[in-house]
């Protein structure tokens, strides 16, 4: 049994390649990834499409076996079923059994990760309520919208209370209320001491939930460090500033002070918090 001091992820020279096409040509997707994630740490993954984020998460989750390098997850072999059952994985798309009702599907996924029958039912009901799908627990997953499937995906990744959480584009397709659910569930997992790896294109998510950031480019780590450090160095970098409680005059004055400091306001419009407030009012 690995001690709690062992890192959640220790990878050395991790490689993943696929062969495809008529000539069975090899294409390298991961080209030597070195990664150390301490227990309880939260890592963000960014990179352009095709940079290998999803593949890296699938390898870490044990869904795929790497073609090269060394990998230890939670102090053990990432491919062993014992370790896999301690990892929660939210895949990029949501390929869960469409013919099952939400509660049935969540109970199935819990049982596949060795959660006891009675516990599985209770936890499935609790998680469906937490992600706002309680009313839809008897609806088949095939009838779910994309956002509902993402919420379900979050619930299934957490149903066995994993020690390592791997989330691929967790907020894609979520509405404002979904963002709040996501924040809350991640906070609960963090409080439990779970380690996390989140791949996302939404920098605000990564900045809010991660204490380390890795930029992947063509299967290699192009930059790594604290989110602020990694992003600060970029020439012409822009930031999002959400402001509340100012009227039109106040906003104009703020814009003028930005201009005085040599900056410029790129866009101005209602923030996601406005939508959240609207949904909260509607649900009341």
């Amino acid at each position, binding site marked *: 049994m690995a001690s709690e001091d062992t890192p959640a992820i220790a990878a050395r020279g991790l490689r993943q390649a*696929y062969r*495809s096409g008529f000539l069975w040509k090899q294409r390298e*997707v991961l080209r030597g990834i070195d990664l150390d994630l301490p227990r309880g740490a939260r890592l963000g993954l960014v990179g352009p499409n095709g940079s290998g984020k*999803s*593949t890296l998460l*699938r390898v870490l*989750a*044990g*869904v*795929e*076996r790497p073609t090269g390098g060394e990998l230890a997850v939670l102090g053990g072999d990432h491919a062993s*079923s*014992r370790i*896999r*059952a301690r*990892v929660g*994985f939210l*895949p*990029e*798309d949501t*390929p*869960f*059994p469409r*013919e*099952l009702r939400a509660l*049935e599907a969540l*109970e*199935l*996924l819990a*049982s*596949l*990760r*060795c959660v006891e029958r009675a516990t599985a039912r209770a936890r499935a009901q609790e998680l469906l309520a937490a992600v706002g799908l309680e009313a839809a627990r008897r609806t088949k997953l095939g009838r779910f919208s994309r956002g509902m499937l993402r919420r379900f995906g979050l619930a*299934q990744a957490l149903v066995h209370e994993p020690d390592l959480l791997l989330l691929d584009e967790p907020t894609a397709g979520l509405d404002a209320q979904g963002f709040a659910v996501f924040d809350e569930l991640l906070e609960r997992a963090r409080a439990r001491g779970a380690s996390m790896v989140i791949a996302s294109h939404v920098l605000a998510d990564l900045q809010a939930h991660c204490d380390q950031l890795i930029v992947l480019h063509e299967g290699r780590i192009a930059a790594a460090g604290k989110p602020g450090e990694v992003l600060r160095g970029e020439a012409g970098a822009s930031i999002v500033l959400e402001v509340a409680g100012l009227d039109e005059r106040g906003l104009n004055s703020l814009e003028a002070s930005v201009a005085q400091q040599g900056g410029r306001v790129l866009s101005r419009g209602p923030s996601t918090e406005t939508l959240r407030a609207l949904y909260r009012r509607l649900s009341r």
Partner: protein
Amino acid sequence: MNRRLIALVARRFLPPGALALFAAALALAMFIPWAPSAEQGADQLVPEVSAGLARAGVLLTALAVILPWFCARAAWCVGQWRQGDGDWLGTARLSRGGVALAHLCGAGLALAVALLPFAFAAELRAGDAAPRLRWLADSAVRPVVLLTESDRVQVVAPVPRGGDVLRARFVIAAPGNGGPQARLRCDIARSGARNASVEVLVTSNDALEVQLAGGVGPLELGFQRVGPGAAVVLESSRLQWFESKPARWKGGLALFLEAWLAGGVVCALALGLAAWTSAGTAFLAAFSPLCCAWLSDSLPIAWPGVGLRGALALCSDGLGAGWPALLTWTFVAIVCALAAALPALQRDLWRREV
């Protein structure tokens, strides 16, 4: 083994579209006249044969729609794993072999559910006529060739448990001085029982039937021709043993089991092969042994579909089928084990390039 996963797989093998197709086939099988009508000479058929033809007809209809669907669905399982199921199956606390085995169990369960209504419908179509005899075993004996009146061949055959009727099927080998027919006599001796003798007229392919009347140990049979006639030989050098007045459910259950085993082995082959080839290739490779069993007479009993074909042939003759052979069960178990191992050996089982 995860029961919920097995139930999900079974559900996937029986989607509403497939259920509707099976229901239509069942309705069709209930109305097709399987036995010849009175104008076609039905009055010459004994009721057991008419009932047997109806039974076999309903089951053949079932097999014609169910087996191709199950084979195709099993071959498509691995494709489904690679199209997304692998993301949650791959993170389960189940080995790859365990996942494959759960799929085989689900397929077997769904196959049983699909076959059961046809098995009941077959009995319903057969009406009140239950088979008079149920096949138990075949005994290989030395060749029996009776060319002249003076030829007499003695054979000794062990009696299987429960067997009380023996059939020896003779065929005309060459026409003799009495035309293309011959009268045969069989003298029967068994310790503890009175000696007896039976005669039969062989015109093309006719069976000599012996009813045992007690006794213990092996049976001694003496075959000889009576009077002038054609040369006759014992077909395939084997004797068939039957149980008389069998319980009706035994024949029906035996047919069901043969169909289930044939379907099961086809599904297992398709699933195992699909891990290494395309779904289409796996389907063809898994289904072709079954077609071979229907086309060839010389395949071993363990070959997928051979036992089923034999059981259906007995059924069409108005006889009850026997339990599937131990060799058939063993072969199915071996194929299932291999089918579970083949996906486990595939490195890129859940592979989905992203």
